[in-house]
C-alpha cells in the first residue's frame, strides 16, 4: 500500500435513504433572535456573517424575539395565515383534481408556503415578481382570483395562456407577475434586467425572483448574481432551498461545503440565510433586502431554508429516494402551524377561529373549482378554438401560419 495520497472523486450523499431514519443533523440552526440585524445600507464586507448564520424570529415558545422581529400587527399575521392556508388547501384540491384526471399535471408547494406569502407581503404592489413553478402563493397573496389560476390548470376557454402552457405556468400582467418558463433558472437574470431598467428609468420599484436549490447550478443563476452586483440592481434574488431537486439532494448543487447564501459574498453582494418556515423571519429579511434595493445599496441574495414536503410534481414518487416520514422530522417544522401557534401565544387566535378559517378557505376553493369547470376542462366543453393555436407566434400571423390554420380546419372538418 502506497502512503502517497491520490486524487479521488467525492460523490455527495443525502443523509438518509428510504428505509433509513431521517437525519437532519446537517442543518445548522441559529437560536431565534441571535443574529444581529445590520443597517440595510451596510457594506457587504461587514455583513458576511448573515450568510453563515440563520435569521430566526419565532422561538420555541412561539414568541417573536430579537432584532429581526418585524413587529407585524395581529391583523397582518392573520392575513399571512389566511394566504398560507388558502395556498395549501388550493394545492391539495388541485393535486386531487390531477389524480382524478381533470388536469394533466400539478406541483404543490406544501411546507414552503411562508416563502411566497411572507415575501410577497413584504414587497409592494409595484414591485415585479419573476417566480418559479412553486410560487403559487405569490398569486394568491397578490389577490389573483382562484378561478383564474384554475382555468390555466384546466387549459379551458378562460385560460390566460390560451392552452399553450403546462399547468402551473401562470402569469399575471396586472398583478406584476411574470410568466413561468419550463426551463429552470431563466427568470433569475431576467429579473435583474427588469431591475436594471427600473434604475435606468429612475423608478422606485424593485424586482424579485425565485429559484430552487437545484437550479442554482444553472449558468443563469451565476449570470444573475454577476449582473446584479456589477450594476447594483434593485433586485432580490431568492434561493428556495427545499433540500431536493426531484430525486437529487441539494448537496449536488454545491450546498455541502457552504450554504447557498454564501454565494452572494463570493460575487460581492450580501447573502442572508433565513429560516424559511418562520413567517416573521422571512418577512423581515425580505423587508430588509427591499429597503436595500430601494435606497440604491443594491441586490441581496436570500437563501430560504425549507423542506419540500410533497412530491416534486404529480409525476414523482419521493418514497423511491428519501425516507417516507422525512418531512415530519424536519427541524424547522411547518410554517402554518408555527404562525398559528404564534398568534395563539399572542392571544389573537384560537382553534375555533382556525377551523372556521379552514372551512372558509375550503369553501372558497370548492366554489372557484365549480365555476372554473363551467368554462371547460381538457375533456369536457366548452373548449378553446384550436384556431387560436396560430395566434401570438408573432404579433401578426404570417402567411405560412395562415395556410396551416386553414389546413387544420380542413383536417378537423373531415370525419
Amino acid at each position, binding site marked *: 500500500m502506497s502512503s502517497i495520497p491520490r486524487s479521488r472523486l467525492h460523490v455527495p450523499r443525502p443523509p438518509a435513504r428510504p428505509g433509513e431514519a431521517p437525519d437532519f443533523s446537517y442543518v445548522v440552526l441559529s437560536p431565534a433572535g441571535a443574529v444581529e440585524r445590520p443597517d440595510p445600507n451596510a457594506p457587504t464586507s461587514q455583513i458576511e456573517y448573515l450568510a453563515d448564520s440563520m435569521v430566526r424570529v419565532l422561538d420555541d415558545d412561539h414568541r417573536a424575539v430579537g432584532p429581526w422581529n418585524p413587529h407585524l400587527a395581529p391583523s397582518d399575521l392573520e392575513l399571512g395565515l389566511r394566504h398560507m392556508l388558502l395556498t395549501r388547501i388550493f394545492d391539495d384540491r388541485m393535486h386531487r383534481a390531477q389524480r382524478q384526471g381533470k388536469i394533466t399535471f400539478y406541483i404543490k408547494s406544501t411546507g414552503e408556503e411562508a416563502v411566497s406569502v411572507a415575501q410577497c407581503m413584504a414587497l409592494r404592489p409595484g414591485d415585479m415578481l419573476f417566480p418559479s413553478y412553486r410560487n403559487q402563493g405569490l398569486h394568491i397573496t397578490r389577490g389573483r382570483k382562484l378561478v383564474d389560476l384554475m382555468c390555466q390548470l384546466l387549459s379551458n376557454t378562460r385560460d390566460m395562456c*390560451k*392552452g399553450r402552457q403546462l399547468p402551473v405556468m401562470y402569469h399575471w400582467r396586472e398583478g406584476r407577475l411574470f410568466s413561468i418558463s*419550463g426551463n429552470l433558472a431563466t427568470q433569475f437574470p431576467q429579473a435583474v434586467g427588469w431591475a436594471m431598467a427600473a434604475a435606468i428609468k429612475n423608478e422606485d420599484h424593485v424586482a424579485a425572483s425565485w429559484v430552487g436549490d437545484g437550479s442554482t447550478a*444553472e449558468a443563469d443563476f451565476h449570470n444573475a448574481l454577476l449582473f446584479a452586483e456589477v450594476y447594483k440592481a434593485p433586485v432580490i434574488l431568492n434561493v428556495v432551498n427545499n433540500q431536493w431537486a426531484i430525486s437529487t439532494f441539494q448537496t449536488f448543487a454545491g450546498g455541502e461545503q457552504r450554504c447557498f447564501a454564501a454565494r452572494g459574498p463570493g460575487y460581492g453582494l450580501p447573502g442572508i440565510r433565513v429560516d424559511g418556515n418562520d413567517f416573521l423571519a422571512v418577512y423581515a429579511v425580505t423587508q430588509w433586502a427591499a429597503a436595500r434595493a430601494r435606497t440604491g445599496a443594491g441586490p441581496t441574495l436570500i437563501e430560504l431554508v425549507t423542506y419540500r414536503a410533497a412530491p416534486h410534481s404529480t409525476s414523482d414518487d419521493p418514497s423511491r429516494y428519501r425516507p417516507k416520514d422525512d418531512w415530519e422530522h424536519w427541524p424547522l417544522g411547518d410554517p402554518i402551524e408555527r404562525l398559528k401557534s404564534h398568534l395563539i401565544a399572542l392571544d389573537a387566535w384560537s382553534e375555533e377561529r382556525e377551523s372556521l378559517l379552514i372551512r372558509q378557505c375550503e369553501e372558497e376553493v370548492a366554489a372557484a373549482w365549480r365555476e372554473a369547470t363551467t368554462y371547460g376542462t381538457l375533456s369536457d366543453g366548452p373548449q378553446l378554438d384550436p384556431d387560436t393555436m396560430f395566434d401570438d407566434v408573432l404579433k401578426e400571423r404570417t402567411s405560412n401560419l395562415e395556410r396551416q390554420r386553414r389546413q387544420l380546419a380542413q*383536417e378537423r372538418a373531415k370525419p
Partner: protein
Amino acid sequence: MSHMNMIQALNSAMDVMMARDPGVVVLGEDVGYFGGVFRTTDGLQRKYGEHRVLDTPITEGGIVAAAIGMAVNGLRPVAEIQFADYIYPAYDQIVSELARIRYRTGGEFAAPVTIRTPCGGGIRGGQTHSQSPEALFAHICGLKVVMPSNPYDAKGLLISAIEDEDPVVFFEPKRLYNGPFDGDPDKPATAWSSHPRGNVPEGHYRVPIGLAEIIRPGGQVTIVTYGTMVHVCLASARGLGVDAEIIDLRTIAPLDVETIAASVKKTGRCIVAHEATRFAGFGAEILASIQEDCFWHLEAPIQRVAGWDTPYPHAFEWEYFPGQARVSAAIKATLEAS
C-alpha cells in the same frame, strides 16, 4: 432474445457497454440513485457504482462540458439531458466545442461523447416538454444525429453511438418508450412485447449509424420518415391501402441519401414526414436532396408533413401533432397529382 420496451432496450445497451468497457460512464440529472425520470438508467448505479453512474448538478452546459473533458481523458461518457427541451443551455458546448474538437485540432484530439435525450410530444408536456430539435443539430458539422423508432434499433444504435469515435446526439422519441404509436390518441397504446421490433437480443449487437432502413417495400410512393412518425405513416399507408415504400431514416446525420434516391427513382413519388416544426425542419434537407438526385424521375411534387410553425401547445397537442389525417391527405395529394 427477450421482449423489451424502448426504455429497457436503451438500458440494456448501456448495461452491455458498461460491462464491456470500464471507460463507459453515464452522467446526468437524476440518472444515478433514482435511475432517471423515465427510468432509462435504472439499476446501473447499483451495478457499476457511483463513479461510473453520476448524478449531476442541474446544468446542462456543465454536463456536456464535463463529458467533453472526460472523453478527452479517455473515457466514453454517455450524458443524459433530461428532456430535449433542456439541451439549449448546453448548445454552446455542443455546437462550438464538442462538434469541432477533432477538426480544430487537426485530428489530434477527439471527444467521443454520446448525448441521450428524450424528444417529441404526446405526453401532454406543453411547450417545454415536447420539442423535436433534431434539425438544429443536423445543421452542425461534426455531429452525428440519431433517432430510433423501435427498441431493436434503439439498442443497436445506442451501442454504435457509444462505440463511435465521434460525438452523437441521440434523440429518443418518448412517445415510443412504452410501445408503438400510430398517432391516434384515443386508441389504447399497444406494448412493444407484441411487436417484432420489441424482440431484442440480450447481448451486444450493432445497428449501423448512417444507414436508413426500408421497413415496408412498395412501388407507388416513397415515404421518408423517422421516429414516432414511422408508425403514423405505416398506419396511414395501411389504412389507405396504398403500396407505399416506407423508409425509416434512423440516422438524421449523416443522411443516407442513396437509399432515399433509389426508392424515389423507383416510385416517382415521395412524401417526407416528421413531427418537428415544418419551416426549415429536417424535411427541407431531404426534399433538397431528392430534387438534386431524382428531379427527372419525379411524377408529382414532393409533399411535406410536419408539426405546425408554432410552439407545441398543451391543449392542442393532437391538433399540432401530424397524425394520420395529415399524412393520408399528403399521400392522396401525391398520388392524385400527375
